[in-house]
């Protein structure tokens, strides 16, 4: 990485598209087809991704797996420590998850705490047959013993860098931003 350039775009639209197609095929291969599959995106980044994967699976197999979305805010482990509470979004699971093969979908896998929260949430909703994890980017720095079953791309990052995922159709990108410039939230 050029130290003078604080942000680097790692994936462009054609690459993101190829990666998602590969992931959809991997999900189908591992589950021997679309039967019983249920995609659940973690809000917000995972929701469009879950829909894209459902679209792709439908185009490959002619059957569209249900796609839902989870807002894991209420299950986070850092809520009581924060001064400002995050906005709540509505989760929606269109069908019962009992006995289904759930694929949790998120854009970036980082510490693993969001995934932990999502699993706790799912277990309160019902009893899935199994839970798998699909992420577009695995950036490392896990703080919990969690690993993804389907990874779009492994991107080694520094702990304080930020990974920005844009999934606007036709303009998909994954960019890593170094804190000096990129910390818009500071």
């Amino acid at each position, binding site marked *: 990485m050029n130290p003078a350039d604080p942000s680097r775009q790692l994936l462009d639209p054609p690459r993101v598209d190829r990666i998602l197609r590969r992931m959809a095929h991997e999900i189908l291969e591992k589950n021997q087809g679309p039967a019983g599959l249920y995609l659940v995106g973690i809000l917000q980044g995972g929701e469009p991704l879950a829909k894209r994967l459902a679209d792709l699976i439908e185009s490959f197999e002619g059957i569209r797996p249900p796609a839902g979305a989870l807002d894991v805010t*209420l299950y986070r482990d850092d809520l009581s420590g924060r001064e400002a509470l995050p906005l709540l979004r509505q989760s929606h699971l269109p069908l019962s998850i009992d006995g289904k093969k759930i694929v949790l979908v998120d854009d970036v896998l980082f510490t693993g705490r*969001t995934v932990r929260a999502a699993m706790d949430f799912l277990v309160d909703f019902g009893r899935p047959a199994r839970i798998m994890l699909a992420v577009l980017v695995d950036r490392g720095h896990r703080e919990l013993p969690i690993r993804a079953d389907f990874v779009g791309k492994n991107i080694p990052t520094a702990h304080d860098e930020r990974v920005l995922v844009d999934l606007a159709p036709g303009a998909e990108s994954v960019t890593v931003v170094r804190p000096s410039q990129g910390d818009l*939230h500071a």
Partner: protein
Amino acid sequence: MPERLMPTPLPAFGPHLLSLSGMTQERIVGILDAAEAFLDVGQQSVKKVPVLRGKTLVNLFYESSTRTRSSFEIAAKRLSADVINVTPSQSSVTKGESLSDTVKTIEALGADGIVIRHASSGAAEFVAERVECHVVNGGDGCHEHPTQALLDLFTIRKKKGRVAGLTVAIVGDILHSRVARSNILGLSALGAKIRLVAPPTLLPRGIDRWPVTVYDRLDRGIDGADVVMALRLQLERASGGYIPSLAEYSRLYGLSREVLERHAPQAVVLHPGPVNRGVEISGEELFCNDVAILDQVEYGVAVRMAVLYLLMGGRGEESSLLAAGSRGEGL
């Protein structure tokens, strides 16, 4: 772990919910939106979320209550808080302990929040001045009952899709009604047109300065209304000289199927409960109108969950309502 939430909180929610007075439209809508998310918790197979785990809420009810107390209790339990119900008849209050001493004792026991209902107006504020923990007004005398008004607003929004611009007729004992007072504040903050329908003896003084139109006839008052909110006639008022007799009150101000069908066929009918059958609402059968009284109970739990979450979910008394930009980026 880097902070990934945009630190752009709305003005502090404040440590307490004592009144809807001065509460902005933005704040009220924030509470109603949060309640929407909590409504789903009731659909889960495990009807609990872990947001208030390890926190203790004390329901301190000096007046009898079934629905408000159990609604707060269920709301707190769905948020995984521990709940203790203190009723004066079984407590040291019968030995003459003052309100101030009682709440300080409760706080010393480790309460993180107190829901107080008391017959004296201003009791919630009195308590809030004396304790460090969160205080929610569960109804104080003839003053306010903010969570009831919030759940009424939530019910109206669910049934009609909006609150702004709707005509809401509040029928009955306005004078003694804390529910009416909180509702008038909330409804006017959200831009509803408010009508009060009551005999002159049951209207408070200074009503001409409120943002309301007053009607003394039921048929005119509810004519074309989108929402008809019946208030409970506190039966002890009948003996207080405010109304000639229950029968006459019921004849003039009781909601019946006929009068609703004729004058407000589209109206959603609300009632804070408990209903005096045959007084405010006549007949055993419910109307063709959309009677939302049982929905109100369900929505009440979600609204109280939202209130408790917003007050007690964050860190201590600093808790505030953040509404923007929680962009989750693979935490």
